């Protein structure tokens, strides 16, 4: 009896889940006979079973619903919203009763009566409006009843049985055992004399085992339908509650994924759908006001892409209001305004995933989104998935979840550190580089390691330091993995090397192993040596990485706030001609190895073809300039807002912090002077000169309307003038002249003087003079000089002088 009862509960619950869609569909199209039949069959089955099992409450409820539905089927009544709602209420009640049987709770019997009464009343009203036909429909004869009985039997579908999950897991374990035994056998076979017969038998065994493994894996698969089952009901209930009209489109329900995966995705998906309805799709009035269809569309789709399932939730609502998200992030103190300002539009949108944002409830009112999105992302990433979003303000939002097919078998990378092998989920690794790669530079400051990849700085951790093993020397270049950690910032994990990748069966590790905080589980790869799976997020936490965002170097070299620090980041490299030089890092867009055949010369000018464009090249290159053993030349790609230049070099050395003040000003060609780095002289490249190589003079914006004022800088040898002032002026649209031999200020020029320039002989000239001082405070009341970093005043004064509105 116990067994029968639990079977009944399981069947009923399954039936209820499957029916949630049906009811909603029926409401949309009341004439849908097939759906009506389906619903009727369910209640009929429940009534029958509950009568047999002596469950009078189930019987009463299902009987009431069956009655109503049977009249609808016979065409005596048309389903209307109120009646369908009442039928739904009965279904909910049946679900509650099922749950109560399982948990042993009791539910108030009176509520049943109320629900049944409501259904009857609704139905009576519906019939009343439908024309109040007579009572003929109320006494179905014996014949029609038996017909119904026959129809109520489920049509023959593929036979299924129920199995306890434990059994399937045991089967899976058994198969894993077989695979390991097979591997061992194969190792043993390799040492003995080859015997064709034995080998072919072994081959057959191998194939059988592989097939079996596949089949058993399939028993764990479920259709995504199950994931979608709850959505129609939720959309219906929520849209009613909020007074919105929403059309739901479900696609790809027949895609299959691992049962555990389905369980893991249900919550995030529900959350996202809820958010879309609650905050994304506007009310009918708002939609009308902005010229959209009153009915919003919510599209939930799934498809398989390689070893991943892609689930997309797209709405045509208002999208993400990035300004609101940004202001929320800033006001919550999670990021500074400066940091936020550097972010791209996409990055700003992704701030909705910022942990801590969710705790502030009012964000829903302001931005529309952001409730618990960090948790959604954490949940998706925990199962090795990725979540991304694309929002078009006013047009809608699409959230895409990519999750692996199964939880227990994941693609993993096997790596080695301190002589021990570890695994890491493939999904956690963004990029792998060798530490001798020219685009990477590793720095150390006070014990903290940083690695800079293409101008982005990351915290770096040696895995050996985390696990307390010595770093083994002399094994070739180390591998740097750019690792994405749940919720945190990406960082670099350095290991001895990355060996290969393998599909790994992941098992949970023992608590005392998990307690270390750096492992996510353990696995048994094909070689039979147990291995631990690393937890990227845990390692970041254990190492107490600062949670600062990656610092993107600002592009403008003349940014006064940067210069105030007195130093800039410089890239140290070796020229093709052998000199060691240093160049402002902000000028270098990236470092690239370019094949020799891309280089060429035309009319004496060297050029290079990159990404389908022809770009000026600083010098012609030949065979001898290629890196040894390759036919590629390392190049700096240099650009400002107007110019682009490819600058071939021998090799990149490092990134250094260079003082703005040259230790020795020795301007010659590209070189601005010398700086001392660790006691060695290095030539500092003149930023202006290198950009001048980029080709034609820049077209000054606005030059057609009025010629820009020319600034005459008296002291051309002052490195500050050259490195800081000139780029600033150029950027502001002024032309810069240098006080070199033979050059003298002309009419209309503005003369710029610095402190140490001898002012007396210049004072007589007819040109307006602007003095710059080094000290931040004026020397006296009569001092009309401008502090040299007071950019705003300087530009304002120069502009005013250029227009002749202010007399000098």
């Amino acid at each position: 009896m116990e067994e029968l009862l639990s079977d009944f509960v399981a069947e009923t619950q399954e039936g209820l889940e499957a029916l949630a869609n049906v009811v909603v569909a029926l409401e949309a199209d009341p004439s849908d006979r097939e759906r009506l039949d389906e619903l009727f069959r369910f209640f009929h089955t429940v009534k029958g079973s509950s009568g047999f099992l002596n469950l009078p409450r189930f019987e009463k409820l299902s009987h009431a619903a069956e009655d109503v539905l049977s009249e609808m089927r016979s065409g005596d009544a048309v389903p209307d919203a109120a009646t369908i709602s009442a039928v739904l209420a009965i279904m909910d009640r049946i679900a509650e009763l099922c749950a109560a049987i399982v948990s042993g709770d009791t539910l108030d019997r009176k509520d049943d009566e109320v629900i049944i009464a409501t259904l009857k009343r609704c139905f009576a009203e519906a019939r009343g409006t439908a024309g109040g036909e007579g009572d003929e429909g109320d006494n179905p004869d014996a014949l029609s009843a038996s017909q119904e009985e026959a129809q109520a039997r489920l049509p023959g579908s593929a036979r299924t049985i129920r199995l306890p999950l434990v059994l399937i897991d045991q089967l899976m374990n058994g198969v894993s055992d077989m695979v390991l035994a097979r591997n061992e056998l194969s190792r043993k076979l390799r040492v003995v004399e080859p015997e064709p017969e034995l080998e072919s038998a072994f081959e057959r065994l191998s194939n059988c085992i592989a097939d079996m493994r596949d089949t058993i894996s399939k028993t764990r698969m479920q259709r995504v339908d199950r994931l979608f089952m709850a959505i129609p009901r939720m959309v219906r209930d929520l849209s009613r509650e909020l007074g919105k009209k929403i059309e739901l489109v479900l696609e790809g329900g027949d895609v299959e994924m691992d049962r555990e995966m389905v369980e893991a995705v249900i919550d995030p998906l529900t959350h996202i759908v809820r958010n879309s309805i609650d905050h994304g799709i506007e009310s009918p009035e708002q939609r009308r006001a902005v010229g959209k269809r009153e009915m919003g569309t919510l599209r939930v789709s799934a498809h398989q892409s390689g070893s991943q399932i892609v689930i997309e939730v797209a709405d045509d609502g208002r999208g993400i209001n990035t300004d609101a998200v940004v202001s929320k992030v800033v006001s919550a103190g999670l990021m500074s305004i400066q940091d936020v300002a550097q972010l791209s539009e996409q990055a700003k949108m992704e701030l909705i995933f910022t942990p801590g944002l969710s705790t502030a409830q009012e964000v829903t009112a302001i931005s529309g989104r952001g409730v618990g999105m960090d948790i959604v992302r954490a949940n998706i990433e925990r199962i090795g998935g990725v979540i991304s979003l694309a929002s078009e303000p006013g047009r809608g939002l699409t959230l895409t979840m990519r999750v692996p097919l199964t939880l227990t078998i994941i693609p993993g990378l096997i790596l080695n550190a301190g002589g021990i092998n570890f695994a890491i989920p493939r999904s956690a690794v963004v990029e792998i580089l060798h530490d001798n790669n020219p685009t990477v530079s590793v720095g150390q400051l006070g014990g903290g390691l940083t690695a800079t990849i293409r101008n982005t700085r990351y915290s770096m951790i040696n895995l050996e330091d985390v696990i307390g093993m010595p770093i083994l020397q002399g094994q070739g270049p180390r591998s740097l993995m750019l690792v994405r950690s749940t919720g945190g910032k990406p960082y670099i994990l350095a290991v001895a090397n990355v060996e290969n990748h393998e599909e790994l069966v992941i098992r949970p590790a023992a608590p005392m192993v998990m307690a270390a905080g750096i492992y996510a589980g353990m696995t048994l790869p094909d070689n039979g040596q147990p291995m631990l799976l690393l937890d990227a997020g845990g390692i970041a936490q254990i190492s107490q990485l600062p949670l600062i965002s990656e610092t993107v170097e600002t592009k403008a070299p003349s940014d006064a706030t940067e210069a105030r620090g007195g130093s800039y980041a410089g890239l140290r490299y070796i020229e093709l001609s052998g000199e060691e030089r240093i160049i402002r890092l902000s000028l270098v867009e990236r470092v690239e190895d370019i094949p020799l055949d891309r280089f060429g010369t035309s009319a004496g000018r060297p050029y290079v073809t990159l990404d389908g464009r022809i770009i000026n090249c600083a010098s012609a290159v030949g065979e001898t300039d290629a890196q040894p053993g390759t036919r590629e030349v390392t190049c700096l790609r240099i650009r400002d807002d107007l110019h682009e230049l490819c600058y071939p070099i021998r090799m990149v050395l490092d990134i250094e912090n260079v003082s703005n003040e040259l230790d020795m000003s020795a301007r010659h060609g590209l070189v601005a002077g010398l700086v001392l780095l660790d006691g060695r002289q290095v030539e500092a490249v003149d930023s202006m000169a290198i950009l001048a190589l980029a080709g034609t003079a820049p077209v000054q914006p606005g030059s057609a309307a009025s010629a820009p004022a020319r600034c005459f800088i008296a002291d051309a040898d002052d490195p500050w003038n050259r490195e800081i002032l000139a780029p600033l002026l150029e950027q502001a649209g002024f032309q810069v002249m240098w006080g070199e031999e033979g050059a003298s200020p002309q009419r209309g020029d503005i003369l710029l003087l610095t402190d140490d320039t001898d002012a007396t002989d210049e004072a007589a000239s007819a040109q307006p003079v602007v003095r710059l001082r080094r000290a931040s405070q004026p020397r006296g009341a009569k001092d009309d000089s401008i502090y040299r970093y007071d950019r705003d005043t300087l530009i304002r004064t120069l502009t005013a002088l250029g227009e002749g509105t202010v007399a000098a």
Partner: protein
Amino acid sequence: MNGLYLFAHIAGTPIAVSTDEVDAVVRLNELSPVPGVSDHVAGLSALRSRVLTVIDAAALVRRQKSCVRPQEDTESEFHVIVCEISGHGYGILVDRVDDIQTIDTLPLPICGRIDPAWQPYAKGVIENGGDPHFLVSLSGFLELGVCAQAA
């Protein structure tokens, strides 16, 4: 309790474990190290398709690595008592396994002032052929193992 006990030595001390807790006793010769965790986690070992977390019982009791613990690149074998506790497979590394015997008498209370290191683990005394053995429980070892780590 069926009265069947497994007798072994941990850190030179004779112990008895109820066989209810024991899945098997196996000899292993390979251990994959687990860096970054407490000393008493000796490593991981594969037993068919199961992965066992091998606990160095001596290290747990005496807070020092046991002498039987295999050194790297030696072929020496060692004994572990295999058990499953709350879903995880463990191997308890012992000096040696002596015997399995049915003892019908109930465990005796501990007499005498015992080594404080054993205080948390010893639950009683079982006599086998006149020799006293500490009665220990494997799950107790593991619980205390986790606590020791937390401390």
